[in-house]
């Protein structure tokens, strides 16, 4: 199954900004998402922004990445520029709609 655009964008940017390989970058972001309760296939840019701010810095520090705050700030700026279409079809958005919230 294909990962979301926000996931792919963050992984490629993380690989460019750090010494992590593609596999390491994708694995690190995947772990951060899992810890925060998200799925790489459906995470939105808005949700990814929160993960970059609150979870990824710790994951990068534990892997010895330098300047983690600066890297995450840059990633957050990149992902914040992504525009998303109205109405998501992720399970949480569907269940929110179906409950009339």
């Amino acid at each position, binding site marked *: 199954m294909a990962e979301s655009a926000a996931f792919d964008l963050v992984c490629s940017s993380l690989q460019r900004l750090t010494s992590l390989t593609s596999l390491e970058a994708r694995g690190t972001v995947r772990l951060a998402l899992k810890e925060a*309760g998200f799925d790489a296939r459906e995470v939105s840019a808005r949700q990814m922004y*929160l993960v970059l701010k609150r979870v990824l810095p710790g994951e990068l520090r534990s892997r010895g990445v330098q300047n983690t705050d600066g890297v995450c700030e840059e990633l957050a700026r990149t992902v914040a520029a992504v525009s998303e279409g109205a109405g998501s079809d992720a399970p949480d958005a569907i269940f929110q709609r*179906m409950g009339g919230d």
Partner: protein
Amino acid sequence: MGIVDTFHSLATLAFVVGSALVAVRLLALSARTRRAPEFLLGSGILLTAVLGYGLLIACWILRGTASTTSAAGATPLTVALFAAGKISHDLGVSLFLIFVMHVFRRGDVRAWAFAGLLMFLLWGGLALSVAHGHFRSDPVGTLGWFSEYSVIWTYSLWNVVESYRYWAMMRRRSRVGIVEPMVTNRFFLWGTSSVFTALATWTASIPYLYMADPARIDAITPAVRIVTALVGLASVSCSLLAFVPPAWYRRLVLTGARQATESA
């Protein structure tokens, strides 16, 4: 009518009416949003719980004590009701499977293949049963019957796994400051409703274990009816709280979430 029959009839009526409320609410939503999930789930509930069970129950009432497991006592009307009930129910089960795929496993080829296998067993089994009994009776114990019921007994479990998995994910999101108590609770309720749906199909099927012993079936039927009715009520109650939540329930969930956040 004894107390067991009265309770069973009232509980069944409440189940059908509650399910109809949820189905209408979701179908009305789908008419506005033009989105597939609400249409699939609303139609699935309408076809299984309202039309499917409704028509099958009407058939059982018309045939009186004569069981649908025997062709004796079948009339053109009961055959028509039985056929319409079975087809509606199985169509609803198919829509439930498509709903789970569409919401939780879109793009997952292996999961679609598994859903295809389940639908093949469901409809292939029904086709074999029709060839055997022509909707005059439910051919219990035949290959077609086992094929169809292997899906009827298990399709809810897939929904249970996916809903609880997502409920666990939603709970972890509080770590990044995303707290959506109603949506989180809805995944729990829908998973729990599916647990009760599975339990209801299992308890309702207990008499099939004693097909060779009619006296035993007569003895256990009251208990089976009470348990099935209670489990059905629990299932529809969860669905109603999930998709037609009353104001008091919203307040309860939101207050609980606020207290949990404050104490954390």
